[in-house]
């Protein structure tokens, strides 16, 4: 129990209420999309009806990389990044460090995509790193970008989500300080004496259980948004004369002395096999510096294996394949800074205990959405006498239901445009069309009960449409998924169908309105 003076409590209450009210709906967008992109990788795989290679970068590809290296300007052999999309296609980006017309540093080179199973080259694109397109990743990229920067241009988007992280931190800390009976609030039974008291008790109950989670997410999210934008800029200005590249090189680990003597690359497959044996899973990302030179280095990055906490990175000498040792994400040897940096990522993405921890993170994310929306509703109900607040109150169901409907619609648009290959256009377009329709429905339909039923019905229908369209457009049923080891696609199909059926049931079932035992009266809603 925290004792606060009346004046302090009043100020904290104002911070808690206004932080949630002014930025509440934007916060809801970031939290809901954050809960969804906990499964971004799985959504990517699901959207293309599974992958043929479960660990694409563990497949033999040394010969293919040698073949592709012979097709690019030698200048682009300076750096090579290897990564894969949800369909299991490998991208090989041969590049050098260049600057765009506005002076902004950007990698420039040639990016190939190829199928690791057949070895067939699928695409070849040349230009700056931020110009390449991958239509098959349109859905998961769209969702991730919406969460990370609300699709605003950089660095404005990162500032926006960072400010929302601060708002969530302010709401979480003030919510914690305001609790008069912290333990009791964890087990409060929502009162039935009035609608407002019932809503307040539900908000307190969900908020009390979600408090540590809200604090962790707000803190790590604000760090992730601000570190790469305002953080690097500030520290580089103060300690590196404004040279951000030098700061990044110092943090990651200074490159060794150069040796440009030509040298045949060692067997990449053997190095990656050794790295996978040490890490317990195949690489998620591979970087090769100075390909074809005596000072070439191969960095194999592995996500935490099932049951493991930390990701791993192993370094090899590119010219003879000698193992040089593990490399921390930060610095050249293990340090407190590296451990803290790793912990921030692990806590934000919920990857500390495999799939189970991510499912828990998803569920807690949905609980925080509930806390945000019920907090907003409480604030607005207390001010229901004001026409302005009443009009603003309409925005809660519009955004509350409109956002998940629009997210589902972006998936529907993705599938419908799959055959034409226009997913990059139609995925965001579907989101915007559905968002516009949801807003129009919310503005036109005056009856609140009807509005909620319609929204729930629409959400249920769009969720059910997703697995059906995946099956119809992707052409692969569950038996094919089981054969190729794509169980996650079946799981997502079932989860979406179950969620959709649940919402359709709520929309169609005739439930009796709760009867409040007490007379509606003014209470402190927050």
């Amino acid at each position, binding site marked *: 129990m925290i004792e606060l003076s009346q004046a302090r409590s009043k100020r904290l209450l104002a*911070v808690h209420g206004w932080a949630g009210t002014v930025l509440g709906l934007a916060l809801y967008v970031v939290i809901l999309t954050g809960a969804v992109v906990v499964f971004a990788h799985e959504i990517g795989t699901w959207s293309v009806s599974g992958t043929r290679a479960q660990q694409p970068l563990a497949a033999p590809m040394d010969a293919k990389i040698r073949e592709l290296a012979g097709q690019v300007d030698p200048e682009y052999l300076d750096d090579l990044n290897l990564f894969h999309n949800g369909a299991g296609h490998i991208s090989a980006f041969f590049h050098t460090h260049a600057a765009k017309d506005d002076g902004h540093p950007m990698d420039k080179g040639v990016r190939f995509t190829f199928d690791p199973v057949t070895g067939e080259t699928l695409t070849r694109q040349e230009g700056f790193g931020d110009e390449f397109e991958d239509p098959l990743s349109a859905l998961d990229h769209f969702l991730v970008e919406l969460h990370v920067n609300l699709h605003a241009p950089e660095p404005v988007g990162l500032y926006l989500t960072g400010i929302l992280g601060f708002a969530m931190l302010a709401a979480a800390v003030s919510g914690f300080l305001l609790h008069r009976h912290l333990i009791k609030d964890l087990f409060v039974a929502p009162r039935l004496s009035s609608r407002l008291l019932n809503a307040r008790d539900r908000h307190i109950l969900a908020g009390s259980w979600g408090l540590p989670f809200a604090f962790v997410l707000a803190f790590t999210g604000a760090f992730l948004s601000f570190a790469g934008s305002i953080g690097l800029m500030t520290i580089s200005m103060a300690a590196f004369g404004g040279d951000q590249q030098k700061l990044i090189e110092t943090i990651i680990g200074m490159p060794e002395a150069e040796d440009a003597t030509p040298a045949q690359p060692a067997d990449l497959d053997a190095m990656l096999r050794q790295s996978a044996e040490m890490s317990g899973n195949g690489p998620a990302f591979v970087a090769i510096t100075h390909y074809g030179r005596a000072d070439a280095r191969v960095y194999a990055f592995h996500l935490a294996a099932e049951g493991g906490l930390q990701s791993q990175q192993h370094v090899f000498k590119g010219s003879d394949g000698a193992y040089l040792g593990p490399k921390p994400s930060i610095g050249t040897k293990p340090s407190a*800074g590296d451990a*803290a940096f790793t912990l921030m990522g692990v806590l934000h993405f919920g990857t500390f205990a495999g799939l189970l921890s991510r499912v828990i993170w998803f569920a807690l994310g949905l609980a925080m959405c509930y806390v945000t929306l019920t907090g907003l509703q409480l604030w607005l109900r207390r001010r229901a006498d004001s026409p302005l607040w009443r009009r603003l109150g309409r925005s809660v169901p519009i955004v509350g239901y409109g956002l998940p409907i629009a997210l589902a619609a972006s998936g529907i648009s993705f599938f419908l445009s799959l055959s034409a290959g226009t997913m990059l256009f139609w995925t965001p377009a579907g989101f915007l069309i559905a968002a516009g329709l949801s807003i129009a429905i919310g503005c036109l339909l005056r009856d609140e009960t009807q509005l909620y039923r319609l929204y729930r019905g629409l959400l249920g229908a769009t969720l059910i449409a997703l697995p059906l369209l995946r099956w119809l457009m992707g052409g692969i049923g569950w038996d094919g998924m089981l054969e190729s080891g794509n169980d996650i696609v079946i799981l997502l199909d079932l989860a979406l169908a179950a969620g959709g059926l649940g919402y359709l049931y709520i929309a169609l079932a005739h439930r009796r309105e709760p009867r409040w035992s007490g007379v509606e009266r003014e209470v402190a809603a927050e």
Partner: protein
Amino acid sequence: MASQSDRGWFTAKRTRWLLGGPMAVLIAIMAMGAMPLWFPTGAAGVDHLVFPLILFPALWAAGFFYAILAENLRRAALVMTALALINAACIAVLWTIS
């Protein structure tokens, strides 16, 4: 308490807004920029660069809630101004030696 600052434009409410809003952000940014000067470099020589980035949200939250909860606004204004000046001096030293 309010009478302490209720002179002219700087009412108690506006002063608290200034301290909890722009001042808390300014101090957090300045403290982040000044930390590499005094924070231990650690085993890999990067802790003094990484921890300021990680602690930035905590630096902001500390300044923000101090401004919100302070009963004596005059003292809070003095403390926060002093912190800003100390961090500015640290940044100046860092700038000179880098």
